[in-house]
């Protein structure tokens, strides 16, 4: 019996040995329907694999923080981050850079959505009468689902969300926010406008039960970020080749996965506003 245990132990130690020495691994924040993550990004992995001369692998993660940690720990070298997760990741990995963003990410928006029973109506000004309702953000680490809506709520009421609303929750991702507000579990929610538009277009939202009541001013959001040591590990000019591969992605079926119309160049400086906002509400040091 003991012998068996020992054998099992030795075997599990053997598994500690690195297995994927020179595979280029990327991940993406799980911002929408997590059951489809693999099919969503596997085609992107295949595309990159064909454009770069290394093996490319996609690995799904369960949370925004897990994406940042995997990037920081060098278990992934490239990531499709949100604005905030990208800022966090680049602060933790010196030398890493934002290399491309979606065309829409230059002017991204958050939609505040409300359940029909609240009687809230669409308006151009911040909807002050959301006060006292129940409210859900997306993931705790989301830019469009947490950072920007919380910023605007704090600006409008000069108080923390917990003081403004009867109940505050974190749904986990944008599709779930839509589902929760649609079902009335929460009366009001904040959602990534691209996910909202995609779900409405595909008929997954019952717009009799839930509608957009306010749109935030625009801000920069998602971007591809690569580690600073990528050239050293995968050869000179590798970062440029990755950037080129991303910028030249033109297959609508691939772009639809994000969903974006095209990718355009990005730089770390583009995300200064996000970092400032995050510091203001105290979720980064």
């Amino acid at each position, binding site marked *: 019996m003991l012998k068996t245990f020992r054998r099992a132990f030795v*075997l599990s130690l053997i598994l*500690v040995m*690195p297995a994927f020495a020179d595979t280029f691994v990327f991940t993406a924040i799980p911002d929408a329907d997590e059951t489809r993550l693999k099919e969503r990004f596997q085609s992107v992995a295949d595309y990159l694999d064909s454009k770069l001369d290394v093996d490319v692998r996609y690995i799904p993660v369960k949370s925004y923080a897990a994406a940042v*940690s*995997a990037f920081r720990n060098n278990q992934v070298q490239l990531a499709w981050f949100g604005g905030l997760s990208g800022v966090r990741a680049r602060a933790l990995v010196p030398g890493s850079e934002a290399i491309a963003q979606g065309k829409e990410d230059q002017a991204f928006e958050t939609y505040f959505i409300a359940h029909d029973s609240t009687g809230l109506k669409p308006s151009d000004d911040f909807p002050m009468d959301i006060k006292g309702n129940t409210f859900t953000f997306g993931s705790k680490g989301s830019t469009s689902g947490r950072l920007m809506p919380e910023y605007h709520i704090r600006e409008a009421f000069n108080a923390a969300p917990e003081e403004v609303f009867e109940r505050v929750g974190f749904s986990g991702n944008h599709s779930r926010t839509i589902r929760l507000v649609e079902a*009335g579990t929460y009366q009001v929610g904040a959602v990534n406008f691209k996910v909202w538009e995609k779900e409405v277009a595909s008929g997954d939202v019952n717009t009799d039960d839930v509608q957009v009541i306010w749109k935030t001013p625009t801000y920069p959001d998602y971007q591809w970020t690569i580690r600073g040591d990528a050239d050293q590990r995968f050869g000179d000019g590798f970062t440029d080749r990755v950037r080129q591969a991303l910028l030249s992605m033109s297959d609508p079926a691939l772009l639809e996965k994000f969903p974006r119309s095209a990718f355009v160049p990005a730089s770390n400086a583009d995300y200064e506003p996000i970092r400032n906002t995050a510091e203001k509400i105290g979720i980064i040091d």
Partner: protein
Amino acid sequence: MLASPTVRVTLIVTVVGILCAFLGDLAITTVNPWQDLKDLFLGVVTPDFFSIDQVGVALLRTVAFAFVGVALGSLAGFLLSLVFGSRVIRIGCAFVRAIHELFWALIFLQFFGFHPLTGVLAIAIPYAGIFAKVYSEILEENDPTPERVLPEGTGRLARFLYARIPDALPHLVTYTSYRLECGLRSSAILGFVGLPTLGFYLESSFSQGYYSEVGAILILFYVLIATLRHWARPRLIPAYLVAAPFFLGDGLPIVWGNVSRFFTQDIVPAPIRDGDGLGALGDWLTQLLLNEALPGIWNTLLLTQIALVCTGLVTLIAFPLISRHFGNRVSRGGGHVLLVIARSTPEYMLAYILLQLWGPSMLPAVVALALHNGGIIGHLIGRRSNEIQLRPDAPSGFNRYSYELIPRVYPPFLAFLFYRWEIIMRETAILGILGIHTLGFYVDSAIQEIRFDRAILLILVTALLNIAIDVTSRRVRRYLRLQTRVTCEGH
């Protein structure tokens, strides 16, 4: 009557529980909670086993992580149990088992990342602490006679192997196989934080409302647990153990620099890391304790006490369902099925499901904890009640229940309830990850904000609170002169 310690303790716990229920938030906030419940039920009866292509692999991984984790835990626990007399070892074991598997997984994820070792250690470490304690209790309870008849000068090892082990072995095996079942539950749950086990897919499918996929995963999980004793035969175990490490998946390679960075930088409090001095550290600590630890402790205790009373209620309602003193063969069969489902469903999974259906409050957590723990204790008390012989002219129905059985099973009932107090608290804390504002909520927030210094401190607070409950529970049990047999799946 008030002079009886049993009555007094029962009254105090009940009154505290009711007070907590007034202070806690127990609302159902969904507009239409029954619609989702109906959809879920429809999903379970129309399971879709083919839409998730990974589900077979996930099932395999769930079993593999459970086997490797429990095997390592039991080996380490056995070795530790031999030196359990040492105070340091005892405290160390109490400490590692006070931290929930999910917290361990969240910690290891930060530096081992998506490597199988994360899942294996997340199970093995807390289990080692539990095994050490229970194994040492089993060895201690041994009949001392065989040792006395050994000749003078028998070596310690021979003494141990020939006089202690043979007597204790059946109990050790029974307990270990029970823990294997727990290990399968833990392994499945680890998927919720990103390991490739069943929980990973359950969480994803549930959050999208793909109830037929949820149904398929739940059914697979119940079948796995219910058939455990048929496929996990003692003779096959060595084969499973040898095979299991090969089915953990390859994950991603460990970068060892991350490990040292985690311990030398990440978990060092930010003011010290940035060299801001002791004053800043004081502020940092005060802020963390006031804004996160205290509200977390308060909510954790509220929820624990409500759940403890409700667990007691569920137990008292549930145990007659399988007791031979009530009903007939058919009704007891149904009762067994109900209790098996209640205790096989991990409370984390149950709370997750109920939270989706009823909205965010303490209610889903209370119901989940009460059903799961009430199912376990109800099963034990039901079995205990079967050993009771009633007089032929004993009353039937409610009088039999209240005048014949309750007085007889009440002491073991209280013993098991208090035994699980600490377990309920540990689960309560972890349920915070789902959004209820117990300690786990603040731990999860700190991790989402990549502030591991705060996360670790809050996990320490959780562990200390758990140890405090454990000590209190032992005192109460001693005050009531209650004994639990350790081999009775108490943990």
